């Protein structure tokens, strides 16, 4: 059984084919890195997997369950979480409220118009725990707008982890971080247990190559190289994509 299976995925915007017959099979517990130049179709691939975009053809399956026709919200309930390249959080709210919203998304409580959210101790405690897990427990009551960029990245990861995902998609989690913040996020990602499968898009090769076991190189919407770190680094097509002929 594969954790995430992508078969012949195609997507075009008008005349522009952004993914061309992408095939990926990611095993449970695997750490997979997806790299490629800007415009290679990496984020579009994530959007197709999470259901934010509908593929023209092809299919996506999560632990052998077909996702292709399911709306994006249902995929979250089946164990698919993601973070965004451009941080997408709730800036007017506190860190605690951000993570609470994440937990609430999978709870039937989200439909309840009669209870007070602040009195749902089990949710609040879970949110506090998720924040503590990413080292932000002490900032739980701080408004997001008053936090640093690196802290917001960690809130994104806390929100994703709070949903206990089976597959976690990380879209450039190190983008825009300082050296210290990169170290913190790296430690955090290395600490995620193996029952969570991770697929990561990243440009920072030093960090990403340490993290990933297998790497897929995308170029013009296609997966052109796939293999272990050594195989991908040694492949002449990788050098050609990044350095030219």
């Amino acid at each position, binding site marked *: 059984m594969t954790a995430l299976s992508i078969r012949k995925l195609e997507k075009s915007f008008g005349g522009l084919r952004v993914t061309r017959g992408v095939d990926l099979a990611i095993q449970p517990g695997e750490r997979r890195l997806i790299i490629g130049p800007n415009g290679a179709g990496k984020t579009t691939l994530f959007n197709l997997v*999470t259901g*934010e975009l509908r593929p023209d053809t092809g299919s996506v399956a999560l632990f052998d369950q077909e996702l292709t026709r399911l*709306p*994006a*919200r*249902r995929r*979250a*309930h089946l164990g698919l*979480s*993601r973070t*965004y390249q451009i941080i*997408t*959080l*709730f*800036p*007017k*709210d*506190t860190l*605690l*409220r951000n993570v*609470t*919203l*994440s937990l*609430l*998304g*999978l*709870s039937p*409580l*989200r*439909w*309840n*118009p*009669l*209870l*007070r*959210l*602040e009195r*749902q101790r089990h949710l609040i405690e879970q949110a506090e725990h998720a924040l503590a897990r990413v080292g932000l427990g002490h900032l*739980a*009551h*701080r*408004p997001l707008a*008053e936090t640093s960029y690196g802290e917001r990245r960690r809130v994104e990861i806390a*929100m994703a982890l709070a*949903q206990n995902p089976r597959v976690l998609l990380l879209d450039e989690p190190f983008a825009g971080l300082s050296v210290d913040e990169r170290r913190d996020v790296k430690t955090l990602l290395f600490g995620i247990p193996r029952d969570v499968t991770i697929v990561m898009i990243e440009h920072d090769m030093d960090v990403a190559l340490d993290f990933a076991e297998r790497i897929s190189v995308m170029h013009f919407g296609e997966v052109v190289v796939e293999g272990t770190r050594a195989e991908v680094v040694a492949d002449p097509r990788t050098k050609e994509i990044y350095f030219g002929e």
Partner: protein
Amino acid sequence: MTAPRVALAAALVALVTVPLWVPGDYYISVCSQILIYAVFALGIDVLIGYAGLVSLGHAGLFGLASYTVAVCLAAGVGHVAAIAAALVVTLAGTAVFAGLSLRATGIGFIMITLALGQIMWGLAYRWVSITGGDNGITVPGRPAPFGLRLDAPSHFYYATLAVFLLTVVATWVFVHSPFGASLKGTRDQPRRMTALGYHVWLIRFYACMFSGLLTTIAGILFVYYAEFISPPTVQLTSSAEGVLMAISGGSGTLLGPIVGSILVEIVKNVASAYIARWNMMLGAIFVAIVIFMPEGLVPGTTRLVRRALKLRGPIPAGAPAPTTAAAEPAPGEPAP
């Protein structure tokens, strides 16, 4: 007792004693009208302030409720059945409004609600056999719940006050609930909310239904207040006034729409007796609010008071920090 609670208690005392200190039946009736329009503005604010959806069609729903009561009463139906019919018909109408309008957000939502509101106005104006057209429908008297007659302005005021307080409490519970948090999330980051597992469309639909419920209640109160309903109540300017009430007072707050309705209704009913061009005055007030307090009167005043307190000196030890999640805004404060 904290300052907000003292203010709340003072406001309650002031509201309950209105017939004692307001001079004359006319002004007591104006107070009833303020409360009715406050409920209407609260309904609109649920959408503007908490869902990020601006409706210009709510007067259509308000009118639908009023006309349903009026038509039922004119046909000899009892008050309870007429009110029940108004609730059913207007909530069904709200579902249709929401189903069509929520195909879009932003400008698209505004334009669809505007069009639907204008359809309702057109029906009120042209479907003469049902609505009486320009002549409207006169309601044959007010109900007498539990044997209490509501003919006297002060009696009707108390009935309106009771309904108003219930709607304020219901709205407070609604916006502070898990569903309210979900709704605010869809206002701020709909894409993220979908990725987190929320059904954004359905959340907005339910918010429209709650907003429609408040609007229905306001419409029912209005037709009993005026004992008459005619097309001008349903027209676009009525929807726009409701939106202005919510925005000028402060959308995303509970106190804001109430303050906005006080402002608009006083200018319409009181200042208009002394100033011929009261519309111009109302416009000037709105322009001033937009320039000096773009967030609305209630959040703007709160901001100024906080700034003044800050200038006066440090917050005493033991006072709650202003930026904690536990410090959930009191009614009237901006939504987080």
